[in-house]
Structures are given as structure tokens and as C-alpha cells.
């Protein structure tokens, strides 16, 4: 099969018009050492049957989360997504309708975005939410930049309970703008005190709730301490289902809430695409990144939807925009909205309670095993255990036995001396058999 539509004749004609001898002449401005001197190390073309066979063999080496006892979390969670969600998001009206450039033509898409924003604002306890961002980590970095704009300061304090991926993305983005980041050390025990790190030059404090290690935080004192110094409190929520059971950040004084919305409507997807949630107090709306959909009435008084406050955005303000993000995770946010709508408020609370109950059961069983101790006094659906052996070894040995036991902290926070810690997540999909298999497996490898 031919993948390039131009024939040798076409190419000859084009090269003659622009006056070059051969294709290589087009690359004369690229330094020689930057050019690949050998063919790309890939197999040559093959027939459809051979390609299908090769790719199926590669795919079979994956372990699908649903096929084994699965306790992996750390910012990406396996939940049950009702079949209706997939069916609805694949309707062609939705599947192809990106945030449109003539947005008001697509009232259905805008209405979904508006409903999504409403749901995110309600869940987080905030006044206003945008139409979504790429993922929790990039939303977190945008929140730090926003806090710097709002406060006209440049120093952010990051909690040691913030997901290391979120910290890394904030760090990367901060390198290319005028910002300074203070990283508090990893906080496995959930005992850190950030108040002393806040001063009159602090733009914001970023905390995660529940933390990366699973601890739940009462953020009210921290919020007051931030506000007393003119700083903002940014709260990251890596597991959105927790908001069905935990006091929302908005009720504890958060100024900006960011989150990962993958848990609702979206599968693990090998790590992406995911769904960044972003919500803030109304008085900061002009400094928010991303798209915002608003409700209005048309000339005949009928309810309608528009993209609004676009003057913050790149296509109008160019380099003075609040963010480079001119889009949203449209399809992922649609799946989120449909899933949450199917659950309803009561269903969502029930889902959260179920997650917590499964995690409690898992923690109780694991805590009774020699060589395993649960670090957390509080958690939602994920907690940290200290193991009598290096966690990475334990995880690998259990994986070889067909048990995905969790995430070794050392994998995401290398060189922090926490090699014996493992994060364990349970969701509504966790069964008693899964918990028993994990417990048996742990007894085996820790013996």
C-alpha cells in the first residue's frame, strides 16, 4: 500500500518549479549532524494479515486492568463506566463536534459544555468552572500562573502531598515564565505544615486533597493563612469521585480548584487523553485560562449558549492571553457529563461511599498482614502502606503472579528514601476476591 499520494512525476514537477534537484536539497538548512544518516529502525512494510498478527501479539502483552485484581491508582483510577456513556459519546453529532470556531452554530456542543461547567462548579464548591483543560497536571500549572497574575506575585509553594506529575508540570512551565516554585519535601505521613512557608511574596499555596499519599486535609486554617498574606489557595483533586464524600475545596476556602476528571466517564486510556478540571472564585474569572461557555437569551428571548469572555483567550489577545490553551478536552468532558448525569447527585454520593467502603475493607485486610502497615489515619479510596521489602520488588513479584497490587512510591518519587512505600487504591470495581488475592499474594512475597 502506498501512503504518499504524490507520484515521482508529481514530485519532479514540484522540484522543478521551486528549482531544486532532489528532495535532499530541501534540507540543506538543517545542520548535517541533526539529520538522520541511516534508515529509521522500523520493519519494512508488510501485508495486512502480517501487520494485524504483529500488533495483536504486542497488544496481548498488556495486562488489561479489568482482567486481574487491580489496585493501581496514583492519579488514574479504574472505574466502571456505564455502556450508555460510550454509546452516547459516539453519536456523530458529538464525536466530530470539537469546540467549534463558529461556536454558536453548535448549540448542542455548547449546552454540554455549559452543563459540564455547572457540574464541575457544584462538585468543587466554586463559582465558575471552565470548559476543561488537558489534564489535572496541566490544569495545576495553569492555576499557578493564574495566581501569579491575580496577586502580581511570582512565588508559589507546592505541598509535599501534591502528585509528583503535577509538581513536575508546574516546574516545567515555571521555567519559561517569571515564576519561582518552593517545593515542600514529600509528605508521606500527612503531617506537613505549610503555614510557615507563606509570606508577603507568596502568590499561592498548592495542596492536593486527598493527598498523593491518600490523606484527607482540613484546609480551612491553611486558607485563612493564605488570605491573611494576600496569597491564593489552590487545591488539586486527583480523584474526582472523592468529591462525592469529602468536603469540597470551595467550602474550605479554596480560591482555585483544579482536578483530574478521568474517573468519570473515561477509561484509563494508557494515561491519556484525560480531563483537566478548573474552577475558581467569580472575582478571578478574567484571569482564568481556557474556554468558558455562558447561557444567554437570543433576540427572540429563547435560551441559548455562547462562548464568553473570549478576550482572555489566545485567538483574540495573542501573546497577552491568560493561557496558550484555546481548546478543551471536548470528548472527555462530554463523557464526564453524561456519566455524572446518569449517576445523579444521590448516585454519585453512593458511588463515593462505595469506593470508600471498598478501600476501608482493603486497608483492614492488608493491615492484618505481617510486614504491612497502613500509614493513613484518613483516606478516601487510596492509602499508603509501608512494606517489609522494597515496594518496587513487591509490585513486580505480584505482577508476575497476575496481581496489580499498587504503585511503588519510588517509581514516581525516586531518590526520596521511600522505597518501602506503596499506594493502594480500591474502587467500586474491587471485589472481595480481589482483596483476598492481594492479601494472599502479599503474604507470599513478604514471607
Amino acid at each position: 500500500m502506498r501512503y504518499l499520494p504524490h507520484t515521482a512525476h508529481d514530485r519532479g514537477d514540484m522540484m522543478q518549479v521551486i528549482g531544486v534537484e532532489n528532495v535532499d536539497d530541501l534540507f540543506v538548512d538543517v545542520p548535517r549532524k541533526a539529520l538522520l544518516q541511516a534508515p529509521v529502525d522500523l520493519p519494512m512494510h508488510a501485508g495486512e494479515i502480517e501487520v494485524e498478527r504483529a500488533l495483536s501479539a504486542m497488544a496481548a502483552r498488556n495486562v488489561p486492568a479489568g482482567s486481574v485484581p487491580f489496585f493501581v491508582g496514583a492519579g488514574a483510577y479504574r472505574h466502571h463506566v456505564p455502556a450508555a456513556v460510550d454509546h452516547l459519546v459516539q453519536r456523530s453529532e458529538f464525536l466530530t463536534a470539537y469546540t467549534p470556531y463558529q461556536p454558536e452554530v453548535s448549540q448542542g456542543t455548547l449546552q454540554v459544555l455549559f452543563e459540564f461547567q455547572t457540574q464541575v462548579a457544584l462538585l468543587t464548591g466554586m463559582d465558575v468552572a471552565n470548559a476543561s483543560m488537558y489534564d489535572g497536571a496541566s490544569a495545576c500549572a495553569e492555576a499557578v500562573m493564574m495566581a501569579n497574575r491575580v496577586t502580581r506575585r511570582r512565588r508559589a509553594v507546592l505541598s509535599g502531598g501534591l502528585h509528583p506529575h503535577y509538581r513536575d508540570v508546574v516546574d516545567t512551565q515555571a521555567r519559561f515564565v517569571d515564576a519561582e516554585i518552593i517545593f515542600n519535601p514529600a509528605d508521606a505521613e500527612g503531617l506537613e505544615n505549610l503555614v510557615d512557608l507563606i509570606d508577603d511574596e507568596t502568590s499561592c499555596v498548592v495542596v492536593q486533597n486527598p493527598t498523593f499519599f491518600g490523606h484527607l486535609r482540613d484546609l480551612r486554617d491553611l486558607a485563612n493563612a493564605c488570605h491573611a498574606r494576600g496569597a491564593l489557595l489552590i487545591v488539586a483533586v486527583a480523584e474526582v469521585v472523592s468529591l462525592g464524600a469529602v468536603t469540597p475545596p470551595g467550602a474550605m476556602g479554596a480560591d482555585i480548584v483544579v482536578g483530574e476528571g478521568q474517573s468519570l466517564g473515561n477509561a484509563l486510556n494508557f494515561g491519556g487523553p484525560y480531563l483537566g478540571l478548573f474552577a475558581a472564585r467569580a472575582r478571578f474569572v478574567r484571569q482564568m485560562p481556557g474556554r468558558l461557555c455562558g447561557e444567554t437569551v437570543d433576540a427572540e428571548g429563547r435560551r441559548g449558549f455562547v462562548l464568553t469572555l473570549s478576550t482572555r483567550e489566545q485567538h483574540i489577545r495573542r501573546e497577552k492571553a491568560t493561557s496558550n490553551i484555546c481548546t478543551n478536552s471536548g470528548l472527555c468532558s462530554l463523557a464526564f457529563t453524561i456519566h455524572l448525569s446518569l449517576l445523579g447527585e444521590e448516585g454519585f454520593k453512593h458511588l463515593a461511599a462505595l469506593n470508600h467502603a471498598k478501600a476501608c475493607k482493603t486497608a483492614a485486610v492488608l493491615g492484618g498482614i505481617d510486614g504491612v502497615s497502613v500509614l493513613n489515619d484518613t483516606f478516601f479510596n487510596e492509602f499508603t502502606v509501608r512494606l517489609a521489602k522494597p515496594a518496587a520488588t513487591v509490585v513486580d513479584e505480584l505482577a508476575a503472579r497476575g496481581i496489580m497490587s499498587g504503585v511503588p512510591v519510588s517509581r514516581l518519587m525516586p531518590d526520596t528514601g521511600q522505597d518501602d512505600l506503596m499506594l493502594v487504591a480500591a474502587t467500586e470495581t474491587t471485589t472481595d476476591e480481589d482483596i483476598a488475592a492481594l492479601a494472599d499474594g502479599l503474604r507470599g512475597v513478604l514471607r
Partner: protein
Amino acid sequence: MSDLRFTKEHEWVRVEGSTATVGISEYAQEQLGDVVFVELPSVGADVEAGGDAAVVESVKAASEVYAPVSGKITDVNGDLEASPGLVNESAEGDGWFWKMELSDPDELGELMTPDEYKTFLEELD
């Protein structure tokens, strides 16, 4: 009104002693239409003549507002936060944007008098 001086970017400045008050002209507010938001500079910030100092956003457009002269911002019009429409109602009065301490009063000589500005506008049309 004769104490006002204007820029080609349609800002005005009124000088009292070493302090200048700055806003956008009646013509500018007419061109913008209903003003919905004004982003003001920080008190204490240093601005340079011709540099960005504020943003005025109307239902039609978002526009930069440049500092007519150089100096330090000493005060901003907090009323614009709740009532950006003041810019439309009284562009050259209550709808002022900021006050500043001049660092180089000679720069005022570069600006247009009301008569010169009027002629400038007639040439624009």
C-alpha cells in the same frame, strides 16, 4: 478641558503639579462601545511613555491602553471595577484610569493640545 493633553493612541493626561491623571478620550470610548472591563496597573508600578499600562475591554474589542508619559503609578480608579461603564459616561472625567508621578515632565511637550487632537481626529475620519 483645555488642560488635557492627548496621544495618537487616544489617551488623555491632565497634569496637576507633578501628578498626572490618565484616561481614554471621548472619541476612544465612542469607538469602543460599551466598556465591560478595565484591567488597571498596579499602584507602585513604573511605566514608560508608550508602554502598556492597562487594558480596556468593550463588547467589541480588547485594547491596550498605553502610558502617555513615563513615571510611577500612584493611584488607580477603583470605581471602574464595579462600574466600567463610567468610561462611557464620563471618559474624560469620572472614568479616569490611573494617577501617576511624572518622571520626565518634558515628555508632555510631545502630546497634543485639545485643538491639535481635534484636528488629528478630523484627519482620521
